[in-house]
């Protein structure tokens, strides 16, 4: 097992897609369907990386990122925003909120893994 990745994503299909790619590449995937669950799971599971959808029901992705960063245990955990938001300032807002990286949706399955692994510390 290469590592544990927490995926916070509300869309079922997209979650499945992401999980598929990650697992196909040998990662353990834990998933949360909303921000609050995501924050709790991150504290419990201590994943190696968090993939975070920005548009989430209830607590939005920026808030989730801030909450995650509020947990000192997760200081070193990379948070990669995966979002279809592509308006001006989305990227900056994401980084300000504490994200380490930013992958724009729709993802490219051929390059997605490489983009994610860029933020993972070398095994």
């Amino acid at each position, binding site marked *: 097992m290469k590592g544990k990745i927490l995926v916070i994503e509300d*869309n079922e*299909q*997209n979650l499945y*897609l*992401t999980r*598929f*790619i990650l697992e*196909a590449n040998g990662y353990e995937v834990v998933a949360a369907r909303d921000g609050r669950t995501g924050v709790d799971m991150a504290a419990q599971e201590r994943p190696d990386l968090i993939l975070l959808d920005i*548009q989430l029901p209830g607590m939005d992705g920026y808030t989730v990122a801030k909450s995650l960063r509020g947990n000192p245990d997760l200081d070193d955990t990379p948070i990669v925003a995966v*979002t*279809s*938001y*592509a*308006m*001006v300032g989305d990227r900056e807002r994401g980084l300000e909120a504490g994200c380490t990286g930013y992958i724009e*949706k*729709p*993802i*490219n*399955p*051929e390059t*997605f893994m490489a983009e994610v692994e860029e933020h993972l510390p070398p095994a």
Partner: protein
Amino acid sequence: MPTLSNLRWRGLRSKIIAWFFVPTVMILLTVAWVIFAAYQQVTENAAIERNHALTTLAAVQYTTELGTYTDLLREYTALFAEPDTLSEANMSYLQEVLSASRGRFELFDGGVLVINNLGTVVGAEPARPDVLGENWAAHPYFRDMLRTPKESFSDVTIDGLDHAEVIVVSVPVVGRQGQFLGLIAGLLRLTGTASSSLVQGASQLEGGGEITYLVDSNGRILYHPDATQIGADLSNYDVVQRVTSGQSDAIRTQSRDGRQIVASFVPIPNTPWGMVSEQEWDALISANQGYGTYLLLLLIMSVILPAIVVAIGLRQILRPIEQLNQAAQQVAHGKFGHTLEVKTGDEIEALTKQFNHMSLQLQETYASLERQLHEQLEAQNALRKSETRYRTLFEESPISLWEEDFSGAKQCVEQIRATGVTDFRAYFASHPEVITQCAAGVNILNVNRAAINLLQYESKEPLLTPLAQIFNERTIKTFREELIALAEGQTTFFMEASGLTAHGIPINFGLHLAIVPGYEESWERVFISLTDITQRVRMENELREHQEHLADLVAARTAELTISNQQLAQEIEEHRRTETALEENLSRSETLHRFSRALINFEDLSDLLQTVVDSVAEALPANRIVLYLLDQETEKITHAVRGGKNREQVSEPDYKELQAGLTGWVLREGEPALSPKDVLDPRESTAVQQRRMETNCGAIIVVPLQYGSRLMGTLTAINSPDEPDFNQKDVDLVMTLVNQTAVAIETARLYEETARRAQELAILYDVGQKITATLDLDMILDTIAQGAAQVAQADKSLLLLVDMKKENLLKTAGFGYSRQELNRQSYIECQDGISGWVLQKQKPTLSADIQTDARNKGIALVNAQRSHDKSAAVAPLIIGQEMVGTLTVVNGRDKFTFTPADLNLVTMLADQAAAAIHNGRLYEAAQEADRIKSAFLASMSHELRTPLNSIIGFTGIILQGLAGPLNDEQAKQMRMVQTSARHLLALINDVLDISKIEAGQFKVEKADFDMRTAVENVVRIVQPLADKKELPLQVTIATDVGQIWSDQRRVEQILLNLINNAIKFTDEGQVTITCDVDEGWLQVDVTDTGIGIQLASQRQLFKPFQQVNTGLDRKHEGTGLGLSICKRLVEMLGGQIWLESEWQVGSTFSFTLPLTDGS
């Protein structure tokens, strides 16, 4: 005087030589000698040591040589080691053995013997029957050997018992049990030839010296290079004695024949012998002979060097002294001022400086002496010249001159004075004879030619007669006067006198007597000159007669003159009056002039009025001046300015009181008034008349201050009763001043008005600028409120925005109010006040005092100090037909009341405000709409992308085979799905981009990047596409294309778009991309050989949603947004994009970008 040359050897030179040179030389010589001696000692010792060492070495070598003898013999000892071998019985055997070894014993020229332990000779080689069987136990050498057998060399001994002298080398023969059996002895002849073995061995000896020889322990020479010496007995020679006693040394000594030698001697080990090597001392030292030369050289140097040093030193010391001496000689010969330049830096230089100083002093003194002498000579010459000149002057003078000696007369006078006489005139009058006596004391020394001529003589002589002899009555009288004058201490004296010429003709002359300066005490030289005044005296007489005649005539005409004199006096008086008047006019003109200047330059009205008053006070004999400026509408005195020296006496009346007096009349009539003193003026009221009589009041002038028909005020001038009355001229003067003042005041008023107007306009403009520059409603309101207060010069301003339909107060802004006060305001309050009235009536209004204004229901305006508020101006804010608020300005009790003009300004501002508020509202609405649009776009983008994410993602996964294998048809169809999905995504992205661009939300992020890399990135992406269509992509990037300051992502987007298009629209041929840099600009051309674009379509191409249709079938997919986005992007990055195309031939799309921000 001694010279240096004859001093030489007793002088400094000899002293320096004696004190320095000789001791130095001696010291150097001693040192040189000691060094040499020490050196020689050392080198000699070394030579001796070396000699000894060499000799020792030779001795050792020789010892080795000797080993060969014993070795040879020792070989045979083994043969004879059996106990009985050396018995006499065995002699024949021994002889046989020895004979067999004959050749080997050649070394021993004396032969070899074998002796047994009993001392019997048992063998000999060569065979010596004579000795065989002999017992040599008594032989001195063998005896010792038999007793203490050992390998040894003998001293000189004899062969056998009585034979020649030999040296024996013996080796003991030892039995197997170690018992002594006998000896084998080799004999060496002492007097052997040069070929004898001993000599052969020894002749190679090389000791340290020239002669090396061997001696035995008895002092006998064993070997000597001089063969004749061999065998000689040297036992008495001390060197030999020492070596035979075992010493090893080298000494300097005398040879046996008395030569100086060095003898080295060493005992030769294992033998009783010694080796001596003798070396001639001189030969030994010859190597050191050079030292003698060095010594000599050293000695010479030790003499020469100090000599040179002393010579140079002497030269250095003596030369300046010689120079000094020469210079001193020159000075002695009178060449003063001779100086020297010596830079030795020692006492001599100091001495030289002193000498130079002395020399210059001498020169100066001498020059001074010469100058004095010269001056003296010149003085004498001048004296002589002066004397001559004096003589000439005296003789040639046109004035008659006598040079006389009065010293006798002086004595005479002094005698008289001694008797106590002080009044000489009286004395001489009573003692006329004394004059003659005194005259005798006068000598005439000389007379000049003019004197002779004057008195008509032929020569000098008669005139040189003593004075007393030519006395007559006239001359006595003259002389008496002279004497009195002199006696009274005068040094010059003049009188008119008369006398007779030589021909007896009477002559009048002026006599001038002068004591020559310097002779005032002795009177020895006195000059007397006579001037002929006969003619003058005659003319004076004639003149006197004429005057007398004239006096008669004058007397006759006196009456006439008196009359004309009176007329003249009148004329003068008239003239004087005119002058006074002129002066007065001048003074007034000056006042006017000064005043005019004040008018032109005035800045402050009060100052100007004071100037007017002061000018009037100056120009008029008035002691009280007062100027009133009046506001006839309000019946108020606005300014009252006082002047004159009694200004304090001017009362301070109010407007009404003024009306009662003369001022009232002037104001009514508009005419100036002059009221003389002590007259009841009917133009004044009775009360005023009364008061005027009571107060100390003289005449009064009152003039109106008037511009056109506008009466501004009056000026009153009052004088005191004791001053002259005012006249019409005074009135005119005052009128002139006052009229000018009126003009000035009017000008100032106009100026102020203009300035105010300009200021108002400036404020209005400023406010307009500010409120149009922003769309922020709060800021607009604040700006307007502040501007209103400024433009109306109001204490406070208040702006209310209301919604009348909803009866709601929307916003308040104000100036002079706190935010709290503004926030407390309510709609009801607005309605209650004058604002409410304005909102209802929709027109502006003024309120002189809001406290008493009926429209104000008491709680109208926000104001903590409401009772202080007084004047207000309120204007409505109207947008279209709708009342949206009011703008109010308020002034306190201490400020002016607003005028319609102020209201006008406020209204103008209110209109501006309404327009600005309208704009602001519209802008807020537009912003809101924009926000909604952006939010919609963001949302739509997201909503569309979310499902697309799944579609593209899963398609990709399936195509990758991650979800299981696909057959070809499935794969083909999946790729179609993928292509469509990507196209849809591109569409969404393009729509999003274009909408962002249009909303102005699109931002470029510039940074430095490598253009080459960017182009390569894009080419890498599109290469598969081109490969698929088998289109070559030709990329040419100029070498100077490198870093560029732009937005890499956007540049790549543009490139991607253009190249994608080119590939898309080209079926065959190629696509060329060139990239070049020119003067700060980057240009990229994307050329294809595609279908081309018709001219008509080219213009449409860069507009959104335009794709050139090639026919009814839309063969080429695309949003039609790409080029439009490209154009926007290029422009946002500061560049341009264009295209050149030919239908059916191809197109070139080009764009430029600035390389840096600056270009």
